[in-house]
């Protein structure tokens, strides 16, 4: 599949908009990194908890971290649409 094929299928932006939109993620990267590390750390804690209280703390923290990650991703989708429309207007 080529550039022309994608253009034909209306997948690409109009040519005048090429290069006009930022490619940086709209997700809050630092909180995301912290939450992902929390989820990974809780996984490790659950592993070493050997089925005792630390395991269950790990499971709960994992749930919370995962929920936080999903929330951040969801917000990033909304922000991305807003930014795109703003860039479109400016260009």
């Amino acid at each position, binding site marked *: 599949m080529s*550039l022309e094929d*994608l253009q034909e299928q209306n997948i*690409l932006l109009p040519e005048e908009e090429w290069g006009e939109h930022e490619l940086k993620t709209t997700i809050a990267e630092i909180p995301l990194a912290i939450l992902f590390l929390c989820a990974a750390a809780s*996984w490790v804690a659950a592993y070493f908890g*050997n089925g*005792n209280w630390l*395991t269950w703390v790990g*499971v709960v923290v994992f*749930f919370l971290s995962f929920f936080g990650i999903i929330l951040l991703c969801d917000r*990033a989708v909304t922000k991305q649409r807003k930014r795109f429309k703003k860039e479109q207007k400016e260009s």
Partner: protein
Amino acid sequence: MAESPQHQTELSRDLGVFTITMVGVGAMIGAGIFVLTGYAAGTAGPALILAFAGNGLVTFLTALAYAELGSAIPEAGGGYLWVKEGLPGPNAFLAGWMSWFAHSVAGSLYALGFSSYLGFVLHEFGIQSVAGIPIEAAIFQKGLAVAIALIFIAINFKGVSETGIAGNIVTVIKVIIIGLFIASGLWVMFNKPVNWGHFTPFTPKGFTGVMSAMGLTYIAFEGYEIIVQAGEEVKNPKKNIPRAVFWSLFIVIPIYILVAIVAVGAVDTGSAQTTWQWLGDAGELGLAEAARQFMPLGTSLLLIGGLLSTMSALNATTFSSTRVSFAMGRDRNLPDFFAKINEITRTPYLALIASGSLIIFMAVAVPIEDVAAAADVMFLLLFLQVNVAIITIRRKYGDKLDYGFLIPFFPFTPILAIVLMIVIAGYMFHFSPLGWYVVVGWITTGFVIYYTYAKKRERAKRVSPVVLEQSVYKEKERFRVLIPVANPKTSQALIDFGAMVAKEKDGELILMNAITVPQQSPLEVGRQYIKNARDRVIDEALEMAQKHDVPTSSVIRIARKPAKAIIDEVEDRDIDMVVMGWQGKRRSPETRLGSNIDQVMKDADCDIAVLRGKEFSNVKNIFIPIAYPDQAHLMLEVGQMFEKEQQSNIDLYHIISPRVNDDEEAKQRRLNDLYEGLADLKAGPDSEEEAKHAIKLTVDTNIVGSIVDLSSQHDLTIIGAAREGWFHKLIAGTKPEQIAQRTDGNLILIKNRRTTIHSGLLDVIEFFRSSEPDRAQ
């Protein structure tokens, strides 16, 4: 249902974020969790919880890629389409080939799961045998799997879609049953605190057990793919596809973890056996056996859930494996019969028969856990390809796409996903070597089919058409020299040179004219210029060639670019050398010698000679600066042709920089190496000692300047094309191109045919290095 090209319609966008999230949830909470939980518990122990949580994180990383690409390229092809777009060479074929296998083998797994669940139902009703065959016998289970597979092949032949109201009802029933299972289990656990002891020891089989269980259950997490595959039916896909991917994972992953907790925690084995061992022994019926203990009507409900899940999953995988092989047939990657559609049912019946056969074969020939392992490894490798593709797609098309979501920490996130998936797939070897052997066998077969069959057919689809051929010689072994001709004023020198080479090699000359048609017009437009091309270009060129008494044929092709026509001709007729002319100027600063010459130099699999100058008929002195023996061989061969025909004198030089800092011995070694590379040339110097003297060794700080000076003292300079690495080219340009730009006299730039491996490697490096999107040729 996918429709034939003649009946393509646009799908209506009526799925909102809630509906599409539920589609993803329904796809994930399915047969995987019902069939595999028992095996996974037996593999990881109570740490099954961690296997599910870990898979959640790994899946999330790939889900980010799906969210980004699904929002930017919301086409039904999904992963296959992206890999096709984002990866070079056989990857697109392999993605389809692997996807076909993964979905078919998943179908085998669900057929076997169904047969176990139905056997369990019969057992519950007190039926011990059917037609004299005990229901616990392997032949009964395999036979039942074949029967249910055949039923769904028949259903798919009639053209039943995998979605629709029935599918949604099944999803709701499955979720309710799993919900009841979790609620009942938690109630038991909180009322019998002793059950919390079931979780110690937590990792009886260590880290390996956890990783193996992650690999084994990975298939239960891949359902979010269907959200993207339904992308053409989603309202506001830029926003809703990524959101649905995330929310479906948020619903499913906690459910899986809770299922793991209650399966291990709420069961009472009534013996010294641990619950995870008990679940492992129950295998695909682990969840149903667990439900019997703590859930009202548990066995019945779980059996209903299991039967419904395996049936709907078998239907969906039969459907998708058929559509993948159908699409591959349509793309000419598989034989045409895969794309044949039944006129009455409008289903791809031969693709269905092939996929159904694969499903049945795997179900019969391989044990269920190895079937699951093979499907898991294949899905891991498929998603791994998607994670590589996202990096190249962002580089090539990033600034041209409308993204609904962008991956954070790009490209480290997809790289992390790739690494984790490789690790999990690696651990699967520990669980099932047979599963891995099957996967490796399938991929190897895919490579063989691609290089011996699919590649040629794929190429035939996009080759520039030949519209006129005259007296083409059919001798296979003849040396062929191709000369693209366009301007009669500049053709004479090319034809003289080409004829000299052809005569020396007892070969033939092929004169080709390419009619170019701009991108916005169909290629057929070019046909109106055939007569003009024949009368004004080809006939005149044939006349010029006549005097050389060399077998000559001619051909006219229609293409978007002359380079495409030349490359196609090289491949079609197994051309040995292309002779091209160069005006001596670059038209664009982005090209090295010119866009057509650059592309032919890069992609044509043959020797290439690029000539600059109008007069090559009176060459007295030839200057050949040599650097590498393999390259020098062809340069000297060409020089010797002039020597033979025009009694020219050849000066061979090897110019090195003082920075090389060779001692005398090393310098001598260099000369020896160069000599050895040229030793087989018949007309070469007689003795080794003489040969070493024939190559003049010069040391100069300015190599290019030195070559330019020597070039001005000769009638003709023959130089080799650049062979420095791409990084050097990027920062400094290449010496041959600098020389070509700075000299005025006659010049021949020579490039050797690359070996297949060298050529393939360079193509891959070029593909990943380039940020230029692929363009239609």
